[in-house]
């Protein structure tokens, strides 16, 4: 398939050149530049010549040890991600188990997929402002709905309570992403060798056994991929919390991206501090990507072992199931 011709090899370089140039100019240089700014005293609206601090790591030290707002933003980002990811993966797995179970044969899957995925495609900023209007106080749609249902007597100021505000941000993230995760997982199940399911079914394994003994182990890589991409996405969470409550109440929904944006672009022009915070974020993302890279490479051998194990397990499960019946 691959041509060995020596004459043509230069086209490999020529065809990839635009990519390389665009990457060097618009990604690599800005990252290095950000790193350098992180070591300087660059502040204020008027650009000054670059001056490295006497202690180059001063900005990083200040951020990590003396900046409660930054620490809070890291903790918030973590909390918001965990509270949205756990229900998201649980619901996505549950729906995957239902939709791929041939004995259940759920109808209308196409329509359900289209509807459940829908929030993911709509602009996150629109959704953020929409939800802040829906939860408006004292007269918003949610307050009206809850009063009509008799769940509450007086209007509730949802967005003033820290826990509720965080909960709603996490819910929006969950609501926007579980459909996506579900479709990815269903595609993963479709990629599993159907013979595995058939033999398990013939051997009398029930739905639970098939799901936990065959489906889940085969989905391991895709689950890890989902986990890490979701972590990196969660780390850079910006649109929803920024336009939903702009970080409030009392910084309870301030994320790291919002901290960076706030330091540099909302009047204080603390470019050095924002750059140092970006670098900390970059290092976290790089570690996560490295992990993903490590997990995705050389999977052939591991996969074979896993498939064999799964077959053995399914046989055992089937035998056990047969005994029970």
């Amino acid at each position, binding site marked *: 398939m691959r041509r060995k011709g020596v004459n043509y090899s230069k086209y490999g370089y020529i065809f990839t050149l635009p990519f390389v140039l665009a990457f060097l100019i618009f990604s690599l240089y800005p990252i290095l530049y950000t790193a350098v700014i992180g070591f300087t005293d660059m502040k204020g609206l008027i650009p000054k010549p670059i001056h490295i601090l006497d202690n180059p790591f001063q900005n990083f030290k200040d951020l990590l040890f003396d900046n409660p707002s930054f620490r809070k933003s890291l903790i918030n980002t973590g909390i918001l991600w965990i509270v949205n990811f756990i229900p998201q993966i649980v619901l996505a797995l549950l729906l995957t188990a239902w939709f791929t179970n041939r004995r*259940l044969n759920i109808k209308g899957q196409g329509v359900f997929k289209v509807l459940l995925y829908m929030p993911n495609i709509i602009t996150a900023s629109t959704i953020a402002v929409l939800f802040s209007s829906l939860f408006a106080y004292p007269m918003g749609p949610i307050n009206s709905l809850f009063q009509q249902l008799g769940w509450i007597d007086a209007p509730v100021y949802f967005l003033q309570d820290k826990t509720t505000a965080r909960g709603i941000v996490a819910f929006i993230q969950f609501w926007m992403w579980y459909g996506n995760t579900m479709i990815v997982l269903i595609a993963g199940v479709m990629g599993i060798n159907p013979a595995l399911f058939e033999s398990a079914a013939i051997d009398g394994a029930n739905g639970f056994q098939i799901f936990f003994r065959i489906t889940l182990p085969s989905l391991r890589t895709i689950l890890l991929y989902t986990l890490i991409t979701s972590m990196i996405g969660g780390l850079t969470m910006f649109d929803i919390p920024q336009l939903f409550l702009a970080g409030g109440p009392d910084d309870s929904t301030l994320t790291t991206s919002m901290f960076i*944006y706030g330091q*540099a672009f909302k009047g204080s022009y603390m470019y050095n501090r924002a750059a140092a915070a970006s670098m900390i974020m970059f290092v976290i993302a790089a570690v996560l990507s490295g992990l993903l890279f490590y997990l995705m490479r050389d999977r052939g051998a591991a996969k074979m072992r896993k498939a064999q194990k799964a077959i053995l397990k399914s046989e055992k499960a089937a035998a056990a199931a047969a005994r029970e019946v």
Partner: protein
Amino acid sequence: MEKVQRSEIAGRRISKTIIYIVCILLSVLSILPFWIMFVNATRSTPEIQSGLSLLPSTHLMSNLHVLLDKSFDPVRGFLNSFIISSCATICTVYFSSLTAYGLVAYNWKMRQPFFTFIMCVMMVPAQASAIGFYQFMYKLHWTNSFLPLILPAIAAPAVVFFMRQYLLATLSIEIVEAARVDGSGEFKTFNRIILPLMMPAIATQAIFAFVGNWNNLFMPLILLTQKEKYTMPVMVSLLRGDIYKTEFGSIYLGLALTALPLFIVYFLLSRYIIAGVALGGVKE
């Protein structure tokens, strides 16, 4: 044995009913917020404040009037977003296809290192380099220009990755060789023969690139400070400000206008979008 089977069938019927109920509830949860948004766009502020309704009212035009009277300009925002997203999408799919073809069709020394490098930089978040990027663009006097929102799209590692997988599975080198025998240059071969072959993959990636660029908030928010340059997502932030504080009908209408193009695109292309999401996840 028969009894066991019968109870099993009854159990399955019950669990199927529960599954349908859950799925329908989740679908309602997906639709309801947007439904309320579209309905409230046609209701007056007093109506919205008097309670929830799922039926449209008659105040669409007066809401539109209030909305357009202030700084919200959906046509401008739509055009800006459209220009940026289209140009960025064309850059992404063309140059990613070119890069992927370079990776698959030619045997060059740096090929494997270059591919490893693409894998490594696939996940770098835009926020990590935002400060340096802004300072760089500020020096070039490119703030308030669309170029810094379009040109970086030439280097889209994840799309290159996807296109490479597609080419590895579909490209037969005989076609390329036949074209060479016929005297076609390498660029011409790519543009005339390979690109049309890649159309299914290009279409999928184009949809996602377009939607991704359209929905992007962070970069336009940093780079664009002039109101007439605002994209749709940045314009949405105007609806949260003080100018529309109590004009709920207009706020909902503004939101509905920003979401409407996406709803139209989604319902026209939902089949391809769902298939594309599925493909994206199983990329290996």
